[in-house]
Protein backbone atom coordinates (compact mmCIF):
# COMPACT_ATOMS: atom_id res chain seq x y z
CA UNK A 1 0.00 0.00 0.00
CA UNK A 2 2.59 2.47 1.14
CA UNK A 3 4.97 1.37 -1.57
CA UNK A 4 2.41 2.03 -4.24
CA UNK A 5 1.78 5.42 -2.76
CA UNK A 6 5.48 6.07 -2.70
CA UNK A 7 5.77 5.12 -6.31
CA UNK A 8 2.90 7.40 -7.28
CA UNK A 9 4.29 10.36 -5.37
CA UNK A 10 7.66 9.55 -6.80
CA UNK A 11 6.34 9.68 -10.33
CA UNK A 12 4.67 12.98 -9.64
CA UNK A 13 7.84 14.38 -8.20
CA UNK A 14 9.91 13.19 -11.05
CA UNK A 15 7.51 14.14 -13.79
CA UNK A 16 8.49 17.81 -14.25
CA UNK A 17 12.16 17.10 -14.48
CA UNK A 18 11.66 14.18 -16.79
CA UNK A 19 9.41 16.24 -19.02
CA UNK A 20 11.95 19.05 -19.05
CA UNK A 21 14.72 16.63 -19.81
CA UNK A 22 12.71 15.12 -22.56
CA UNK A 23 12.03 18.54 -24.03
CA UNK A 24 15.70 19.41 -23.75
CA UNK A 25 16.67 16.35 -25.64
CA UNK A 26 13.92 16.52 -28.20
CA UNK A 27 13.31 20.18 -29.07
CA UNK A 28 16.80 21.27 -30.16
CA UNK A 29 17.41 17.89 -31.71
CA UNK A 30 14.17 17.97 -33.68
CA UNK A 31 14.93 21.51 -34.76
CA UNK A 32 18.43 20.58 -35.80
CA UNK A 33 17.21 17.59 -37.76
CA UNK A 34 14.61 19.79 -39.41
CA UNK A 35 17.18 22.44 -40.33
CA UNK A 36 19.59 19.78 -41.53
CA UNK A 37 17.08 18.85 -44.22
CA UNK A 38 16.82 22.40 -45.52
CA UNK A 39 18.94 24.30 -47.94
CA UNK A 40 19.27 27.23 -45.57
CA UNK A 41 21.88 29.86 -46.23
CA UNK A 42 21.87 32.36 -43.39
CA UNK A 43 22.78 35.10 -45.82
CA UNK A 44 19.74 34.33 -47.97
CA UNK A 45 16.97 34.14 -45.40
CA UNK A 46 13.51 33.42 -46.66
CA UNK A 47 14.90 31.27 -49.45
CA UNK A 48 14.85 27.98 -47.57
CA UNK A 49 13.99 24.98 -49.65
CA UNK A 50 13.76 21.32 -48.81
CA UNK A 51 17.05 19.68 -49.59
CA UNK A 52 16.54 16.11 -48.50
CA UNK A 53 19.81 14.54 -47.49
CA UNK A 54 21.94 16.88 -49.59
CA UNK A 55 23.49 18.54 -46.57
CA UNK A 56 24.57 15.18 -45.21
CA UNK A 57 25.98 14.26 -48.57
CA UNK A 58 28.07 17.45 -48.75
CA UNK A 59 29.23 17.22 -45.15
CA UNK A 60 30.24 13.58 -45.32
CA UNK A 61 31.93 13.86 -48.71
CA UNK A 62 33.85 16.94 -47.64
CA UNK A 63 37.49 15.89 -47.95
CA UNK A 64 38.05 17.65 -44.65
CA UNK A 65 35.62 15.35 -42.88
CA UNK A 66 37.77 12.25 -42.52
CA UNK A 67 40.78 14.32 -41.48
CA UNK A 68 38.66 16.13 -38.93
CA UNK A 69 37.36 12.86 -37.58
CA UNK A 70 40.87 11.47 -37.23
CA UNK A 71 42.04 14.67 -35.55
CA UNK A 72 39.13 14.58 -33.13
CA UNK A 73 39.89 11.04 -32.05
CA UNK A 74 43.60 11.77 -31.88
CA UNK A 75 43.01 14.83 -29.74
CA UNK A 76 40.66 13.04 -27.35
CA UNK A 77 42.89 9.98 -27.12
CA UNK A 78 46.13 11.83 -26.59
CA UNK A 79 44.75 14.20 -23.98
CA UNK A 80 43.16 11.29 -22.12
CA UNK A 81 46.43 9.39 -22.07
CA UNK A 82 48.44 12.41 -20.96
CA UNK A 83 46.04 13.45 -18.25
CA UNK A 84 45.42 9.96 -16.87
CA UNK A 85 49.06 8.85 -16.88
CA UNK A 86 50.36 12.26 -15.87
CA UNK A 87 47.61 12.64 -13.33
CA UNK A 88 48.41 9.31 -11.75
CA UNK A 89 52.11 10.09 -11.51
CA UNK A 90 51.37 13.51 -10.14
CA UNK A 91 48.94 12.13 -7.60
CA UNK A 92 51.52 9.57 -6.46
CA UNK A 93 54.06 12.35 -6.07
CA UNK A 94 51.77 14.62 -4.13
CA UNK A 95 50.61 11.74 -1.96
CA UNK A 96 54.11 11.51 -0.52
CA UNK A 97 54.81 13.55 2.58
CA UNK A 98 56.06 16.81 1.13
CA UNK A 99 56.50 20.27 2.56
CA UNK A 100 53.80 22.72 1.64
CA UNK A 101 51.37 20.16 0.30
CA UNK A 102 48.40 22.50 0.65
CA UNK A 103 50.00 25.19 -1.45
CA UNK A 104 50.99 22.62 -4.04
CA UNK A 105 47.42 21.44 -4.35
CA UNK A 106 46.26 24.99 -4.98
CA UNK A 107 48.92 25.50 -7.62
CA UNK A 108 48.11 22.28 -9.39
CA UNK A 109 44.35 22.75 -9.54
CA UNK A 110 44.52 26.35 -10.77
CA UNK A 111 44.62 25.72 -14.56
CA UNK A 112 41.22 24.06 -14.36
CA UNK A 113 39.59 27.39 -13.54
CA UNK A 114 41.04 29.30 -16.44
CA UNK A 115 38.78 30.02 -19.40
CA UNK A 116 39.85 28.07 -22.48
CA UNK A 117 40.18 31.23 -24.57
CA UNK A 118 42.48 32.80 -22.03
CA UNK A 119 44.70 29.79 -21.64
CA UNK A 120 45.00 29.40 -25.40
CA UNK A 121 46.00 33.05 -25.79
CA UNK A 122 48.54 32.83 -23.00
CA UNK A 123 50.10 29.66 -24.37
CA UNK A 124 50.19 30.88 -27.91
CA UNK A 125 51.57 34.36 -27.38
CA UNK A 126 53.51 34.27 -24.15
CA UNK A 127 54.89 30.74 -24.12
CA UNK A 128 54.94 28.98 -27.47
CA UNK A 129 55.68 31.87 -29.78
CA UNK A 130 58.83 30.87 -31.68
CA UNK A 131 60.43 34.31 -31.44
CA UNK A 132 59.15 36.17 -28.42
CA UNK A 133 57.74 33.23 -26.45
CA UNK A 134 59.32 31.97 -23.27
CA UNK A 135 60.02 28.49 -24.65
CA UNK A 136 61.95 30.01 -27.53
CA UNK A 137 63.98 32.04 -25.07
CA UNK A 138 64.76 28.93 -23.02
CA UNK A 139 65.75 27.00 -26.15
CA UNK A 140 67.97 29.87 -27.29
CA UNK A 141 69.63 30.16 -23.91
CA UNK A 142 70.45 26.48 -24.08
CA UNK A 143 71.83 26.92 -27.57
CA UNK A 144 69.00 25.01 -29.24
CA UNK A 145 66.80 25.99 -32.15
CA UNK A 146 63.41 27.06 -30.87
CA UNK A 147 60.55 24.81 -31.87
CA UNK A 148 58.07 26.46 -34.19
CA UNK A 149 55.15 24.91 -32.33
CA UNK A 150 52.11 25.70 -34.43
CA UNK A 151 53.84 25.08 -37.76
CA UNK A 152 55.89 21.99 -36.99
CA UNK A 153 53.70 20.16 -34.50
CA UNK A 154 50.34 21.94 -34.61
CA UNK A 155 48.17 19.13 -33.30
CA UNK A 156 50.62 18.32 -30.53
CA UNK A 157 50.64 21.96 -29.49
CA UNK A 158 46.86 21.99 -29.21
CA UNK A 159 46.97 18.70 -27.34
CA UNK A 160 49.48 20.15 -24.88
CA UNK A 161 47.32 23.16 -24.18
CA UNK A 162 44.19 21.11 -23.68
CA UNK A 163 46.03 18.56 -21.57
CA UNK A 164 47.33 21.35 -19.37
CA UNK A 165 43.77 22.41 -18.67
CA UNK A 166 42.58 18.93 -17.77
CA UNK A 167 45.61 17.55 -15.97
CA UNK A 168 44.65 19.25 -12.68
CA UNK A 169 41.23 17.70 -12.83
CA UNK A 170 42.63 14.20 -13.21
CA UNK A 171 45.35 14.79 -10.63
CA UNK A 172 42.99 16.00 -7.98
CA UNK A 173 40.50 13.19 -8.33
CA UNK A 174 43.21 10.56 -8.36
CA UNK A 175 45.01 12.18 -5.44
CA UNK A 176 41.91 12.10 -3.31
CA UNK A 177 41.36 8.51 -4.29
CA UNK A 178 44.91 7.67 -3.28
CA UNK A 179 44.51 9.36 0.04
CA UNK A 180 41.50 7.21 0.76
CA UNK A 181 43.62 4.13 0.35
CA UNK A 182 43.90 2.59 3.77
CA UNK A 183 47.00 3.52 5.71
CA UNK A 184 46.87 -0.01 7.06
CA UNK A 185 47.01 -1.45 3.59
CA UNK A 186 50.03 0.66 2.81
CA UNK A 187 51.75 -0.32 6.01
CA UNK A 188 50.93 -3.97 5.55
CA UNK A 189 52.45 -3.88 2.10
CA UNK A 190 55.53 -2.19 3.49
CA UNK A 191 55.81 -4.84 6.20
CA UNK A 192 55.57 -7.58 3.62
CA UNK A 193 58.48 -5.91 1.93
CA UNK A 194 56.53 -5.57 -1.28
CA UNK A 195 58.43 -3.40 -3.73
CA UNK A 196 57.03 -0.13 -4.87
CA UNK A 197 56.24 -1.38 -8.34
CA UNK A 198 54.23 -4.50 -7.47
CA UNK A 199 52.52 -2.48 -4.76
CA UNK A 200 51.48 0.03 -7.38
CA UNK A 201 50.21 -2.52 -9.86
CA UNK A 202 48.46 -4.88 -7.45
CA UNK A 203 47.09 -2.51 -4.85
CA UNK A 204 47.05 1.07 -6.09
CA UNK A 205 46.01 0.68 -9.68
CA UNK A 206 42.94 -1.49 -9.01
CA UNK A 207 41.96 1.02 -6.37
CA UNK A 208 42.19 3.80 -8.94
CA UNK A 209 40.17 2.00 -11.61
CA UNK A 210 36.88 3.70 -10.83
CA UNK A 211 38.17 7.24 -10.40
CA UNK A 212 40.03 6.84 -13.67
CA UNK A 213 36.79 5.82 -15.34
CA UNK A 214 35.10 8.93 -14.00
CA UNK A 215 37.93 11.09 -15.28
CA UNK A 216 37.80 9.50 -18.71
CA UNK A 217 34.05 9.88 -19.07
CA UNK A 218 33.85 13.50 -17.98
CA UNK A 219 36.87 14.52 -20.01
CA UNK A 220 35.67 12.76 -23.15
CA UNK A 221 32.47 14.77 -23.13
CA UNK A 222 34.38 18.02 -23.20
CA UNK A 223 37.27 16.93 -25.37
CA UNK A 224 35.03 15.91 -28.24
CA UNK A 225 33.92 19.51 -28.62
CA UNK A 226 37.22 21.32 -28.06
CA UNK A 227 36.97 24.51 -30.04
CA UNK A 228 38.26 27.70 -28.45
CA UNK A 229 41.83 26.42 -28.19
CA UNK A 230 41.94 25.62 -31.90
CA UNK A 231 40.15 28.77 -32.98
CA UNK A 232 42.54 30.99 -31.06
CA UNK A 233 45.80 29.27 -31.91
CA UNK A 234 45.81 27.75 -35.37
CA UNK A 235 42.43 28.42 -36.94
CA UNK A 236 42.26 24.74 -37.87
CA UNK A 237 45.52 24.86 -39.81
CA UNK A 238 48.07 24.68 -41.16
CA UNK A 239 46.15 22.81 -43.80
CA UNK A 240 43.63 20.73 -41.92
CA UNK A 241 46.05 19.49 -39.31
CA UNK A 242 44.18 20.85 -36.35
CA UNK A 243 40.65 20.86 -37.74
CA UNK A 244 38.39 18.71 -35.60
CA UNK A 245 34.69 18.03 -36.06
CA UNK A 246 33.68 20.94 -33.85
CA UNK A 247 35.81 23.33 -35.86
CA UNK A 248 34.49 21.96 -39.13
CA UNK A 249 30.92 22.55 -37.99
CA UNK A 250 31.91 26.03 -36.90
CA UNK A 251 33.34 26.77 -40.32
CA UNK A 252 30.12 25.54 -41.86
CA UNK A 253 27.92 27.65 -39.60
CA UNK A 254 29.76 30.89 -39.10
CA UNK A 255 32.15 31.15 -42.02
CA UNK A 256 29.99 29.72 -44.76
CA UNK A 257 26.75 30.63 -42.98
CA UNK A 258 25.37 27.34 -44.19
CA UNK A 259 22.82 26.60 -41.46
CA UNK A 260 21.60 23.42 -43.12
CA UNK A 261 25.12 22.06 -43.48
CA UNK A 262 26.03 22.99 -39.93
CA UNK A 263 22.93 21.28 -38.59
CA UNK A 264 23.78 18.17 -40.56
CA UNK A 265 27.30 18.38 -39.14
CA UNK A 266 25.87 18.68 -35.64
CA UNK A 267 23.74 15.57 -36.12
CA UNK A 268 26.71 13.67 -37.52
CA UNK A 269 28.71 14.74 -34.47
CA UNK A 270 26.03 13.41 -32.13
CA UNK A 271 25.93 10.09 -33.94
CA UNK A 272 29.72 9.86 -33.75
CA UNK A 273 29.59 10.76 -30.07
CA UNK A 274 27.15 7.94 -29.49
CA UNK A 275 29.47 5.52 -31.21
CA UNK A 276 32.37 6.71 -29.09
CA UNK A 277 30.20 6.47 -25.98
CA UNK A 278 29.17 2.94 -26.95
CA UNK A 279 32.75 1.75 -27.24
CA UNK A 280 33.82 3.66 -24.19
CA UNK A 281 31.17 1.91 -22.15
CA UNK A 282 32.12 -1.43 -23.62
CA UNK A 283 35.72 -0.93 -22.64
CA UNK A 284 35.51 0.76 -19.29
CA UNK A 285 31.83 0.48 -18.45
CA UNK A 286 32.44 -2.48 -16.16
CA UNK A 287 33.95 -0.12 -13.66
CA UNK A 288 30.80 1.92 -13.52
CA UNK A 289 28.75 -1.00 -12.29
CA UNK A 290 28.96 -2.38 -8.79
Amino acid at each position, binding site marked *: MSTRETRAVGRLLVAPSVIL*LFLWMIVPLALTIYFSLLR*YDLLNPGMETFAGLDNYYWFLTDPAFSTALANTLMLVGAVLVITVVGGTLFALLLDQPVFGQKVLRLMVIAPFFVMPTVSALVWKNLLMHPVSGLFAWIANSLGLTPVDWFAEVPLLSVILIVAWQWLPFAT*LILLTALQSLDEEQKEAAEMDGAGAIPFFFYIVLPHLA*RPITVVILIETIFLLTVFAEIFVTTGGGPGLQTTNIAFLVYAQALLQYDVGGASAGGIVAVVLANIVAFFLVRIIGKNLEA
Partner: protein
Amino acid sequence: MARKQTLTKRISVTALAWLFSGAIFFPIYWMVITSFKTELAAFSTPPTFLFFDWTIENYETVQTRSNYLHHAMNSVILAGGSTLLALLIAIPAAWAMAFAPTDRTRGTLLWMLSTKMMPPVGVLVPIYLIYRDFGLLDSRIGLVILLCLGNLPIVIWMLFTYFKEIPKDILEAARMDGATVTKEIIYVLAPMSLPGIASTLLLNVILAWNEAFWTLNLTTSDAAPLTTFIASYSSPEGLFWAKLSAASTLAIAPILIIGWLSQRQLVRGLTFGAVK
Protein backbone atom coordinates in the same frame (compact mmCIF):
# COMPACT_ATOMS: atom_id res chain seq x y z
CA MET B 1 70.17 7.04 10.52
CA ALA B 2 66.90 5.78 9.16
CA ARG B 3 65.34 9.03 10.19
CA LYS B 4 67.88 11.05 8.34
CA GLN B 5 67.28 9.01 5.26
CA THR B 6 63.57 9.76 5.41
CA LEU B 7 64.33 13.42 5.76
CA THR B 8 66.59 13.40 2.71
CA LYS B 9 63.97 11.49 0.85
CA ARG B 10 61.30 13.90 1.95
CA ILE B 11 63.35 16.86 0.85
CA SER B 12 64.06 15.43 -2.57
CA VAL B 13 60.44 14.42 -3.07
CA THR B 14 59.43 17.90 -2.01
CA ALA B 15 61.79 19.43 -4.51
CA LEU B 16 60.43 17.23 -7.26
CA ALA B 17 56.82 18.01 -6.34
CA TRP B 18 57.49 21.74 -6.28
CA LEU B 19 59.27 21.57 -9.59
CA PHE B 20 56.40 19.85 -11.39
CA SER B 21 53.67 21.83 -9.66
CA GLY B 22 55.56 24.99 -10.46
CA ALA B 23 55.66 24.03 -14.11
CA ILE B 24 51.90 23.44 -14.11
CA PHE B 25 51.21 26.72 -12.39
CA PHE B 26 53.72 28.70 -14.40
CA PRO B 27 51.46 29.89 -17.26
CA ILE B 28 49.09 31.47 -14.75
CA TYR B 29 51.94 33.09 -12.86
CA TRP B 30 53.30 34.37 -16.14
CA MET B 31 49.95 35.84 -17.11
CA VAL B 32 49.61 37.66 -13.81
CA ILE B 33 53.16 38.97 -14.05
CA THR B 34 52.60 40.13 -17.62
CA SER B 35 49.55 42.09 -16.52
CA PHE B 36 51.88 44.32 -14.51
CA LYS B 37 54.22 45.05 -17.39
CA THR B 38 54.00 47.68 -20.08
CA GLU B 39 52.99 46.48 -23.53
CA LEU B 40 56.52 47.00 -24.71
CA ALA B 41 58.04 44.96 -21.88
CA ALA B 42 55.46 42.19 -22.32
CA PHE B 43 57.03 40.81 -25.47
CA SER B 44 60.63 41.88 -25.12
CA THR B 45 63.39 39.33 -24.85
CA PRO B 46 65.05 38.32 -22.65
CA PRO B 47 61.92 38.08 -20.54
CA THR B 48 61.88 39.47 -17.03
CA PHE B 49 60.45 37.40 -14.22
CA LEU B 50 60.26 39.66 -11.20
CA PHE B 51 62.56 42.59 -11.59
CA PHE B 52 60.96 45.05 -13.95
CA ASP B 53 59.09 48.29 -13.58
CA TRP B 54 55.81 47.18 -12.14
CA THR B 55 52.90 49.20 -13.41
CA ILE B 56 49.18 49.10 -12.82
CA GLU B 57 48.38 51.10 -15.94
CA ASN B 58 46.80 48.06 -17.60
CA TYR B 59 44.34 47.71 -14.77
CA GLU B 60 43.57 51.40 -14.96
CA THR B 61 42.90 51.12 -18.68
CA VAL B 62 40.62 48.15 -18.14
CA GLN B 63 38.87 50.01 -15.36
CA THR B 64 38.10 53.06 -17.47
CA ARG B 65 37.14 51.07 -20.54
CA SER B 66 34.76 48.47 -19.19
CA ASN B 67 32.36 47.96 -16.39
CA TYR B 68 34.06 45.01 -14.75
CA LEU B 69 31.63 44.74 -11.86
CA HIS B 70 28.65 44.58 -14.20
CA HIS B 71 30.19 41.68 -16.10
CA ALA B 72 31.35 39.91 -12.96
CA MET B 73 27.89 40.23 -11.46
CA ASN B 74 26.39 38.70 -14.59
CA SER B 75 28.86 35.85 -14.43
CA VAL B 76 27.88 35.16 -10.83
CA ILE B 77 24.17 35.25 -11.65
CA LEU B 78 24.51 33.07 -14.75
CA ALA B 79 26.82 30.51 -13.20
CA GLY B 80 24.95 30.36 -9.89
CA GLY B 81 21.46 30.54 -11.34
CA SER B 82 21.99 27.92 -13.99
CA THR B 83 23.58 25.53 -11.50
CA LEU B 84 20.82 25.89 -8.92
CA LEU B 85 18.15 25.45 -11.56
CA ALA B 86 19.94 22.38 -12.87
CA LEU B 87 20.14 20.86 -9.39
CA LEU B 88 16.46 21.53 -8.82
CA ILE B 89 15.55 19.58 -11.91
CA ALA B 90 18.25 16.97 -11.67
CA ILE B 91 17.86 15.79 -8.08
CA PRO B 92 14.40 14.27 -8.57
CA ALA B 93 15.33 12.88 -11.96
CA ALA B 94 18.52 11.28 -10.67
CA TRP B 95 16.55 9.93 -7.73
CA ALA B 96 14.13 8.25 -10.08
CA MET B 97 16.91 6.81 -12.18
CA ALA B 98 18.83 5.50 -9.20
CA PHE B 99 15.97 4.05 -7.20
CA ALA B 100 13.30 3.24 -9.73
CA PRO B 101 15.41 2.28 -12.72
CA THR B 102 13.85 0.91 -15.84
CA ASP B 103 15.48 -1.03 -18.62
CA ARG B 104 16.14 2.14 -20.48
CA THR B 105 17.77 4.12 -17.67
CA ARG B 106 21.36 3.43 -18.63
CA GLY B 107 20.68 3.99 -22.29
CA THR B 108 18.93 7.26 -21.53
CA LEU B 109 21.81 8.44 -19.40
CA LEU B 110 24.39 7.75 -22.06
CA TRP B 111 22.23 9.31 -24.71
CA MET B 112 21.90 12.42 -22.61
CA LEU B 113 25.62 12.60 -22.14
CA SER B 114 26.20 12.19 -25.85
CA THR B 115 23.95 15.15 -26.68
CA LYS B 116 26.42 17.18 -24.71
CA MET B 117 29.03 16.18 -27.24
CA MET B 118 27.26 18.05 -30.06
CA PRO B 119 29.16 21.18 -31.08
CA PRO B 120 26.91 24.01 -29.85
CA VAL B 121 27.50 26.01 -33.00
CA GLY B 122 25.40 23.41 -34.84
CA VAL B 123 22.26 24.64 -33.06
CA LEU B 124 23.14 28.33 -32.89
CA VAL B 125 20.72 29.52 -35.54
CA PRO B 126 17.69 27.52 -34.36
CA ILE B 127 18.28 28.67 -30.78
CA TYR B 128 18.84 32.25 -31.90
CA LEU B 129 15.54 32.26 -33.78
CA ILE B 130 13.65 30.84 -30.80
CA TYR B 131 15.24 33.32 -28.43
CA ARG B 132 14.46 36.19 -30.74
CA ASP B 133 10.79 35.20 -30.87
CA PHE B 134 10.56 34.85 -27.10
CA GLY B 135 12.50 38.05 -26.45
CA LEU B 136 15.20 36.16 -24.59
CA LEU B 137 18.20 37.56 -26.45
CA ASP B 138 20.54 39.38 -24.09
CA SER B 139 18.48 38.38 -21.07
CA ARG B 140 19.88 36.71 -17.98
CA ILE B 141 16.91 34.37 -17.73
CA GLY B 142 17.45 33.14 -21.25
CA LEU B 143 21.07 32.32 -20.59
CA VAL B 144 20.38 30.75 -17.22
CA ILE B 145 17.95 28.39 -18.93
CA LEU B 146 20.37 27.57 -21.71
CA LEU B 147 23.42 27.02 -19.52
CA CYS B 148 21.28 24.94 -17.19
CA LEU B 149 20.10 22.75 -20.04
CA GLY B 150 23.64 22.50 -21.35
CA ASN B 151 25.02 21.13 -18.13
CA LEU B 152 21.98 19.13 -17.09
CA PRO B 153 23.20 15.83 -18.54
CA ILE B 154 26.40 16.02 -16.49
CA VAL B 155 24.58 17.08 -13.36
CA ILE B 156 22.13 14.21 -13.63
CA TRP B 157 24.84 11.73 -14.40
CA MET B 158 26.97 12.81 -11.46
CA LEU B 159 24.07 12.80 -9.04
CA PHE B 160 22.98 9.43 -10.36
CA THR B 161 26.41 8.02 -9.54
CA TYR B 162 26.27 9.37 -6.02
CA PHE B 163 22.72 8.24 -5.34
CA LYS B 164 23.49 4.76 -6.52
CA GLU B 165 26.10 4.47 -3.84
CA ILE B 166 23.56 4.94 -1.10
CA PRO B 167 22.60 1.60 0.37
CA LYS B 168 19.04 0.70 -0.52
CA ASP B 169 18.49 -0.73 2.98
CA ILE B 170 18.55 2.70 4.51
CA LEU B 171 15.88 3.94 2.18
CA GLU B 172 13.76 0.91 2.81
CA ALA B 173 14.13 1.37 6.54
CA ALA B 174 12.97 4.94 6.13
CA ARG B 175 10.01 3.78 4.10
CA MET B 176 9.10 1.25 6.76
CA ASP B 177 8.99 4.12 9.20
CA GLY B 178 6.41 5.68 6.92
CA ALA B 179 8.51 8.37 5.29
CA THR B 180 7.08 9.83 2.12
CA VAL B 181 9.19 10.24 -0.94
CA THR B 182 9.70 13.92 -0.29
CA LYS B 183 10.82 13.24 3.25
CA GLU B 184 12.95 10.41 2.01
CA ILE B 185 14.77 12.76 -0.28
CA ILE B 186 15.09 15.61 2.18
CA TYR B 187 16.00 13.70 5.33
CA VAL B 188 17.78 10.63 4.13
CA LEU B 189 19.08 11.06 0.64
CA ALA B 190 20.19 14.68 0.69
CA PRO B 191 22.33 14.54 3.83
CA MET B 192 23.98 11.34 2.69
CA SER B 193 24.81 12.66 -0.71
CA LEU B 194 25.65 16.19 0.37
CA PRO B 195 29.32 15.94 -0.62
CA GLY B 196 28.23 14.70 -4.02
CA ILE B 197 25.73 17.51 -4.45
CA ALA B 198 28.28 20.07 -3.31
CA SER B 199 30.88 18.97 -5.78
CA THR B 200 28.34 18.77 -8.59
CA LEU B 201 27.38 22.31 -7.75
CA LEU B 202 30.96 23.52 -7.75
CA LEU B 203 31.94 21.74 -10.91
CA ASN B 204 28.98 23.22 -12.72
CA VAL B 205 29.60 26.70 -11.45
CA ILE B 206 33.09 26.42 -12.91
CA LEU B 207 31.85 25.05 -16.21
CA ALA B 208 29.12 27.67 -16.53
CA TRP B 209 31.55 30.43 -15.58
CA ASN B 210 33.90 29.46 -18.36
CA GLU B 211 31.24 28.76 -20.99
CA ALA B 212 32.23 30.97 -23.87
CA PHE B 213 30.01 30.12 -26.79
CA TRP B 214 26.45 30.84 -25.76
CA THR B 215 27.41 33.65 -23.44
CA LEU B 216 29.20 35.36 -26.30
CA ASN B 217 26.61 34.80 -28.97
CA LEU B 218 23.37 35.41 -27.12
CA THR B 219 24.26 38.50 -25.11
CA THR B 220 25.06 42.05 -26.08
CA SER B 221 25.29 44.19 -22.98
CA ASP B 222 22.66 43.73 -20.26
CA ALA B 223 23.39 40.07 -19.66
CA ALA B 224 26.98 40.00 -20.86
CA PRO B 225 29.28 38.12 -18.45
CA LEU B 226 33.07 38.05 -18.17
CA THR B 227 33.58 36.05 -21.34
CA THR B 228 32.47 39.06 -23.39
CA PHE B 229 34.65 41.23 -21.19
CA ILE B 230 37.60 39.10 -22.31
CA ALA B 231 36.49 39.20 -25.93
CA SER B 232 36.76 42.97 -25.91
CA TYR B 233 40.45 42.73 -25.04
CA SER B 234 41.64 39.84 -27.16
CA SER B 235 43.29 40.42 -30.52
CA PRO B 236 42.63 44.03 -31.41
CA GLU B 237 44.84 45.64 -34.03
CA GLY B 238 47.82 46.61 -31.95
CA LEU B 239 49.65 45.26 -28.96
CA PHE B 240 47.39 43.77 -26.36
CA TRP B 241 49.17 41.13 -24.29
CA ALA B 242 49.59 43.13 -21.13
CA LYS B 243 46.07 44.52 -21.23
CA LEU B 244 44.65 41.13 -22.08
CA SER B 245 46.61 39.61 -19.21
CA ALA B 246 45.15 42.18 -16.86
CA ALA B 247 41.62 41.54 -18.10
CA SER B 248 42.16 37.79 -17.91
CA THR B 249 43.50 38.01 -14.39
CA LEU B 250 40.42 39.95 -13.38
CA ALA B 251 38.14 37.50 -15.17
CA ILE B 252 39.52 34.35 -13.57
CA ALA B 253 40.20 35.83 -10.15
CA PRO B 254 36.72 35.27 -8.67
CA ILE B 255 36.38 31.70 -9.87
CA LEU B 256 39.96 30.92 -8.90
CA ILE B 257 39.34 32.14 -5.38
CA ILE B 258 36.05 30.28 -5.11
CA GLY B 259 37.75 27.20 -6.49
CA TRP B 260 40.67 27.42 -4.12
CA LEU B 261 38.47 27.94 -1.10
CA SER B 262 36.21 25.06 -1.98
CA GLN B 263 38.59 22.61 -3.61
CA ARG B 264 38.24 20.12 -0.78
CA GLN B 265 34.48 19.94 -1.22
CA LEU B 266 34.90 19.82 -4.97
CA VAL B 267 37.22 16.87 -4.88
CA ARG B 268 35.62 15.00 -2.02
CA GLY B 269 32.34 14.89 -3.87
CA LEU B 270 33.85 14.06 -7.22
CA THR B 271 35.44 11.00 -5.79
CA PHE B 272 32.57 10.17 -3.47
CA GLY B 273 31.03 7.78 -5.92
CA ALA B 274 34.28 6.79 -7.41
CA VAL B 275 36.09 5.81 -4.25
CA LYS B 276 34.86 3.45 -1.68
